[in-house]
């Protein structure tokens, strides 16, 4: 899949509490969660973000809680892809499992500034900063994870494997 949008860039150790504060976890409705994405880090985020935009961050994005509400909120706010230098492991799993594309590339993140127009090809891992005219390559997913992604997430993947077993 190819995604294209403007980048919103943040720092390192962006934790799940600022991605979606716990005071909103008494619901799991994506629309409600999307209204509060990134609220405690950047209260203006949900007003600035446009459908298809790209989130970029430094190391350890999504550290902290296992709450899947975090990738749900980001996706519901309109973000199409998250790029980071590294991801916290539960966030990484959650994003793959629920079908939010994420890519790791320190070089691409270093070159991105908020407002840059960025194109991401999740099949090849190619990240193009159209504003700066630079292209980067993220490490490809292992085939097994690629299989989960192309199945449309872990639930569809599980359905498929259970069916095959029968």
């Amino acid at each position, binding site marked *: 899949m190819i995604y294209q949008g403007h980048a919103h860039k943040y720092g390192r*150790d962006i934790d799940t*509490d*600022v991605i979606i504060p716990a005071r909103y*976890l008494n619901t799991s409705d994506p629309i409600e969660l999307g209204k509060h994405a990134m609220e405690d880090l950047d209260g203006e985020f949900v007003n600035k973000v446009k459908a298809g935009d790209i989130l970029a961050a430094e190391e350890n994005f999504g550290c902290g*809680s*296992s709450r899947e509400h975090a990738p749900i909120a980001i996706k519901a706010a309109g973000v199409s892809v998250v790029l980071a230098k590294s991801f916290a492991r539960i966030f990484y799993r*959650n994003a793959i499992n629920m079908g939010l594309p994420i890519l790791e590339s320190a070089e691409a993140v270093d070159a991105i500034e908020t407002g840059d127009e960025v194109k991401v090809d999740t099949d090849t891992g190619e990240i193009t900063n159209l504003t700066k005219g630079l292209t980067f390559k993220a490490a490809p997913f292992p085939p*097994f994870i690629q299989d989960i992604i192309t199945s449309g997430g*872990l*639930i569809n993947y599980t359905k498929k494997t259970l069916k095959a077993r029968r």
Partner: protein
Amino acid sequence: MGMTITEKILAFHAGKDSVKPGELIDVSLDLVLSNDVTAPIAIKEFEKIGVDRVFDKDKVALVPDHYTPNKDIKSAEQAKIMRGFARAQKITNYFEIGRMGVEHALLPELGLVLPGDAIIGADSHTCTYGALGAFSTGVGSTDVAAAMATGKVWLKVPPTMKFIFDGELGQWVGGKDLILYLIGKIGVDGALYKAMEFSGSAICNLSMDGRFAMANMAIEAGGKNGIIAPDDITLSYVKERAERDYKVYESDDDAEYEEVFKFDASSIEPQVAFPHLPSNTRGISEVGEVKIDQVVIGSCTNGRIEDMAEAAKVLKGNKVHRDVRLIVIPATQAIYRQAMAEGLFDIFLDSEAAVSTPTCGPCLGGHMGILAKGERAVATTNRNFVGRMGHPESEVYLSNPSVAAASAIMGRIASPSEVA
């Protein structure tokens, strides 16, 4: 080549003789856990898979502890989704209010997690059970949904980092201080995707409660799991509780570690993590004057009986500072009862603390102790991110129970040696 304890447990549960770091494996699970925040999403996803029943009604645990006793209508609806599912699926290990406790204190206490087990939970602090020599790790709701259907989870075998703590611990220094010190040294992503193995003479002398506090916070260094090989202390804890077989593993002498760290535990003083990261740690002597508004003693990190006793020892004969609210939350009904029987509640109440039924509420800023703008709390919990306990401009300082109790008395972050 030998294997680490983590690799051995994963190999066994993947039906293999051996595994290597980086290998992707399918792991059979002994327990799948979820709570009132994460279960509603897991249940919705489970229903999409198209199976009628969970893989094993005895191997799913559902604990309503985060927003319970329910604080509002929305949270009551969330808890109701989980309750309805538990009844329909005849889940053995569903714990209603009055029987429940903070999940990571409750499951070990009931013997539902045992040495050698492989466990996942839709709660990041599921890594707590590594204190028993189990492999346990936090995942999200979708992973739990798939695991409830299949009894399995996909995992990448993590490389192991070994942390050796030798030496005798000083007064008022416990498992919480060792783990805060360690996170301060390696950072909140210092063990990202890795297994964290704790050993050394200081760990051997640590009580079970101290070990639970350590393994609990492996995730705060980014770790996949924290683990301590079972010894006599582990086995005496487990023997009283286990109703099924379990298996004791330990790392081979020639096991391969990605990194080995050695610490002199005798030189570590009580630690305080400053806002807004658990890695922002200082020794108590380096804290300076930090006035506080609230103290919380509880949570899956430090809400166990030893933590209650430690706090009471400091509070005995003292009053909570006029400008401070002290909230004490025993993590389970059994801890609550024992604290009451041992007279600890008298000490808490005499000191003018508020004592609550088990809940995770204040730890995650859910309910029961939310901070207003500009307020500061000392908490025995595990996270001090921006807005963690309430207003985004409030602050949380993490400590052990004795420092928390001393701070409640003094109205500022204080060492227990100042009051007890």
